[in-house]
């Protein structure tokens, strides 16, 4: 059993020259079979394993990761956590996530640095302000915190923001969710990994799934770069690679396109902005990390890609929008950019479901909202796997909702993934 982390353990270990720290999770070899295999050692897969063990007592579980743990989007996002959605299915789900976030560091005995510094959506026309009011009221009617902010209140909160009337798109107000915030993305993966491992889950890195084993129609395991592994249930949580993995199962088409989303960080700065802020007349969001870098991003590049690299048009667009809000940042420098591959679904909402093949469970379609969903996604997916049926919270997120006309389209863009 690994030691609890605490200020005391830090001190005690420091006195011993930090020689006694143990690996945060074991590095076991795969067993021949498990009750549940989870494909994908990202945030969602690890959270699923953790909640399977914790909530449902299912511990004979393996998480298979083709590379290093957390190498997908859990380690490539802009770390924002919020539940400020318009449509009830989304709001309920993300609010469940928010509640799990609020106790996550304790629960995992791992500081995921969830910091509820708020998320402010800026509105630039009275009509947009009304739109945000609609969303804020939708949240309030589901018991989620939301408030409108005036220009003056916004200026007090973010002094560096340009709120002048001469701006091309002047700020008229904003929608604030105070309980929203940011978390340290890698820590979420590591915390869940450690938590799952402590409950007996095998986390197997560098184990690429190369195919599915079948027992008749039923999926009964996987073939991997480290041998065949059998399982009663095989769960797929590989957002970003869903197309590839589903192809291995013989499913060629999905209501998903994989797109690249770029993110950026500036050099470290002394505290500049205390909240997450988004621009209403384009697509831009920014927060500041504890290290001081401004972390920000915008739209997806807008074409299918698995390359984890984007191109310049989005870079230019994001920086232009950034300076439209913060003209003082022109001389600050972009330090690093990177790309993540997003499962863009046909309505902008995720899929957490049983099937589509017998013995299989599917968690995908996170667009670029997957990070904040991590706890609820794992929690609901674990439920779905354990009980062979969805929880009320993820019941709307089926795979067949598209064909049935039951889409959950927060942006109202229709079957056009690049616009969600």
């Amino acid at each position, binding site marked *: 059993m690994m030691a609890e982390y605490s200020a005391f353990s830090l001190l005690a270990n420091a006195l011993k020259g930090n020689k006694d720290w143990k690996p945060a999770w074991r590095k076991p070899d795969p067993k021949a079979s498990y009750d549940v295999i989870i494909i994908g050692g990202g945030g969602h897969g690890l959270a699923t394993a953790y909640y399977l063990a914790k909530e449902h007592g299912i511990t004979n579980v393996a998480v298979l990761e083709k590379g290093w743990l957390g190498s997908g989007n859990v380690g490539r996002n802009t770390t924002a956590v919020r539940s400020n959605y318009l449509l009830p299915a989304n709001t309920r789900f993300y609010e469940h996530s928010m509640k799990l976030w609020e106790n996550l560091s304790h629960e995992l005995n791992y500081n995921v640095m969830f910091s509820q510094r708020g998320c402010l959506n800026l509105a630039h026309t009275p009509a947009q302000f009304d739109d945000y009011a609609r969303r804020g009221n939708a949240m309030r009617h589901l018991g989620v915190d939301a408030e409108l902010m005036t220009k003056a209140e916004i200026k007090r909160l973010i002094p560096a923001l340009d709120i002048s009337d001469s701006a091309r798109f002047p700020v008229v107000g904003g929608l604030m969710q105070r309980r929203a915030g940011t978390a340290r993305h890698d820590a979420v993966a590591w915390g869940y990994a450690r938590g799952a491992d402590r409950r007996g889950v095998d986390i197997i890195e560098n184990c690429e799934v190369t195919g599915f084993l079948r027992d008749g129609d039923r999926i009964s395991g996987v073939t991997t770069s480290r041998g065949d592994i059998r399982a009663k249930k095989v769960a797929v949580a590989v957002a970003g*690679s*869903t*197309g*590839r993995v589903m*192809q291995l199962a013989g499913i*060629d*088409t*999905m*209501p*998903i*396109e*994989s797109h690249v989303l770029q993110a950026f960080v500036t050099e470290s700065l002394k505290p500049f902005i205390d909240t997450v802020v988004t621009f209403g007349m384009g697509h831009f969001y920014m927060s500041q990390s504890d290290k001081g870098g401004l972390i920000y991003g915008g739209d997806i590049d*807008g*074409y*299918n*890609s*698995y*390359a984890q*690299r984007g*191109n*310049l*048009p989005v870079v230019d667009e994001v920086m232009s929008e950034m300076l439209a809000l913060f003209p003082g940042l022109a001389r600050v420098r972009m330090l690093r950019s990177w790309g993540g591959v997003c499962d863009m679904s*046909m309505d902008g909402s995720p899929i957490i479901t049983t099937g589509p093949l017998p013995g299989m469970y599917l968690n995908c379609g996170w667009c670029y909202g997957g990070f904040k969903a991590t706890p609820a996604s794992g929690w609901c997916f674990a439920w779905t796997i354990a009980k062979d049926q969805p929880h009320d919270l993820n019941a709307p997120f089926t795979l067949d909702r*598209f*064909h049935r006309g039951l889409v959950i389209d927060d942006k109202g863009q229709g*079957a*056009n*993934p*690049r616009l969600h």
Partner: protein
Amino acid sequence: MLITCPYCGPRDVIEFTYQGDGNRERPDPASQNFEAWNAYVYDRLNPAGDHNEIWQHSGGCRTHLRVVRNTLTHEISSVAFAHGGHGSAARRKAEDKS
């Protein structure tokens, strides 16, 4: 990224609008085959590798192009006018069934 428009020559990707999976085939307008309609509207091939795509040169001659582009490397291996006939490089399963 540059796309070589057959009319305008190589142009930056900023001039183009992505119109997605070029393997989709629209059912006959009067068709009542809902499976085919659903497949056309919602289901996409999403290969890791060469992909048949439709792009519009919206910031140029505004024609639609059929582009084969590798989604792992972004390398483009062919570009043609879309109205020059539908590609058949990767037939979708839903169609085969219908």
